[in-house]
């Protein structure tokens, strides 16, 4: 992409240019449409974008351009003319919302997610919906009913999941930002596999109204961005309490982009204590992954941060806890998909058969598996041993973070144990679940976490994860901006 290509402009600059009238929103959107075609973002190529309406996007862009006439109105739009993509489990009124499933094939929601409404209010243009593991259950986007998404860095490999489509599209340059959802790592892990930034906010920061629920106490809408600043702006726009979501937090989002201002200081991270949690660096961790993280710690130290060893002793229980709680909540959340009021219906002789045919044909293997696990751990006789027990251990995991954050401000960990694996390489369900080993803890505790690219292993991107305390996004972004800057400086040298 040439430097004059709107697609190469950071989001803040693009919005400012459109707002000031230097650039047309239609030009920005057209650039994305062209880029999508060039990289093959759709079904015949990466299969990252599974539905779009170019005409509608251009019309929306024209409307944004028309607002520029009103003095200052377009200037006030923080995302004026910025094309965005949305994971297909986020409700939109103009494009289908399939959740990567047959059971919602062709379903167009009659209401829109709060996060999408906020993006549109800020002048962003929705370009399309992206592919995902069915109902967000997966770590590779191989479990979509609409085919797998390919990693643009290496098309024989997975982009990660479940927000693989959004991550791949951002990595391929189709848009600078996209929304995903993160329940156990589904924004951060694909971000790491695709070499982009992925942020999961504090639980309750972003309204879940309009996010099709997978595991209600773990889900959050997250932002994928080309750079830390792109993601920061996206998150600032969508965050904030929503009366339509009783779990959304009445805590205003402070400025995240303030961290950007200080990165050029000599020691931008002076006073910041960064924790190195030993449980995230197990003996079996790939040595090259460890090396990348060590280099990142070194850069943070050079930027003025103090590195402190900490321990989060219950970390190894996180995957079993997650795989009890998430399927349990999912089994209940997915009960509404029965063919009665919306979605695909498969006929049956009576009501019971209609339910069973609809669900057996509409749900894929992984979703079926998780509904079974979830139903089992909630069922009579097993609730105490599994679900209740898992929620108690979850409390211990949350406590680990609270204690760690008494001595440090943020943690730095690997995002994933390995870089992107080959399509079809992982077939054992539990082995697939282990991809989430470093990411599920943040969902269980409700703390914010983000991944940013820090290097390559075998030519494939790898990410480091920054975890902060509840509502600690400013500290998290401060560290992220500084690390990103230090890496860029190093790469340029």
């Amino acid at each position, binding site marked *: 992409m040439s430097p004059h290509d709107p697609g190469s402009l950071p989001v803040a600059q693009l919005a400012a240019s459109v707002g000031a009238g230097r650039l047309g929103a239609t030009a920005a959107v057209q650039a994305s449409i062209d880029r999508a075609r060039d990289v093959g973002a759709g079904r015949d190529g990466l299969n990252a974008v599974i539905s779009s309406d170019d005409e509608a996007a251009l019309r929306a862009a024209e409307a944004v351009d028309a607002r520029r006439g009103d003095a200052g109105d377009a200037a006030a739009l923080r995302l004026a003319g910025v094309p965005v993509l949305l994971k297909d489990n986020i409700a939109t009124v103009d494009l289908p919302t399939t959740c990567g499933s047959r059971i919602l094939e062709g379903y167009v929601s009659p*209401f829109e997610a709060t996060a999408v409404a906020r993006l549109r209010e800020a002048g962003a243009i929705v370009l399309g919906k992206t592919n995902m593991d069915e109902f967000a259950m997966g770590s590779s986007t191989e479990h979509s009913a609409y085919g797998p998404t390919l990693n643009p860095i290496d098309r024989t490999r997975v982009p990660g999941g479940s927000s693989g489509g959004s991550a791949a599209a951002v990595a391929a340059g189709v848009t600078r930002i996209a929304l995903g959802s993160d329940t156990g790592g589904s924004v951060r892990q694909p971000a790491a596999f695709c070499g982009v930034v992925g942020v999961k906010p504090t639980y*309750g920061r972003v309204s879940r109204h309009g996010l099709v629920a997978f595991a209600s106490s773990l889900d959050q809408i997250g932002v994928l961005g080309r750079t830390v600043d792109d993601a920061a702006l996206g998150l600032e726009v969508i965050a904030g309490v929503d009366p339509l979501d009783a779990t959304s937090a009445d805590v205003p989002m402070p400025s995240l982009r303030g961290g950007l201002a200080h990165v050029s200081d000599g020691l931008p991270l002076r006073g910041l204590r960064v924790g190195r949690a030993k449980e995230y660096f197990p003996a079996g961790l790939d040595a090259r992954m460890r090396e990348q993280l060590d280099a990142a710690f070194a850069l943070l130290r050079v930027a003025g941060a103090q590195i402190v060893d900490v321990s989060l002793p219950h970390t190894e229980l996180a995957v079993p806890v997650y795989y009890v709680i998430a399927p349990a909540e999912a089994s209940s959340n997915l009960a509404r998909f029965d063919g009665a009021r919306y979605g695909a219906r498969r006929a049956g002789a009576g009501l019971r058969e209609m339910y069973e045919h609809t669900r057996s044909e509409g749900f894929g293997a992984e979703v079926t598996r998780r*509904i*079974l*696990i979830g139903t089992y751990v909630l069922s009579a006789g097993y609730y105490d041993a599994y679900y209740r*027990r898992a929620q*108690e251990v979850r409390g211990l995991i949350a406590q680990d973070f609270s204690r760690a954050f008494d001595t440090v401000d943020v943690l730095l960990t690997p995002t994933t144990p390995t870089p992107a694996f080959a399509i079809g390489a992982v077939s054992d*369900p539990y082995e697939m679940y282990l991809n989430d080993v470093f990411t599920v803890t943040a969902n269980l505790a409700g703390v914010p976490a983000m991944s940013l690219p820090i290097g390559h292993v075998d030519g494939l991107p790898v990410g480091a994860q920054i975890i902060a305390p509840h509502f600690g996004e400013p500290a998290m972004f401060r560290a992220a901006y500084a690390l990103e800057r230090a890496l860029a400086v190093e790469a340029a040298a």
Partner: protein
Amino acid sequence: MAVTEHDVRHIATLARLGLTADRVPALVAELNGILAHMDVLAKVDTSGVDPVHGVGAGGMRLRADDGEPYPMTRPRESFAPEMRDGFFLVPRLATHADEEEGA
């Protein structure tokens, strides 16, 4: 705790999943494999920990008993598989026995 074929058929019925008989053995194996990893939770000392009731902050936020109904941009007929006279239609219940299942 080992899951049996009977268990799988029972929970599949609870979840209205319509599993065909040929899928059951493989699912039994898969479930047992996955659940084996959860056994470690039984050994953890959780005395003194309150189970997490949602990670959201504070007590529940309520809404006032007024305001306009939430709008829909398209009518029910646009997404309903079958409607007639304003009712959602589903296949007739197999037995009157199902009639009073609800509370």
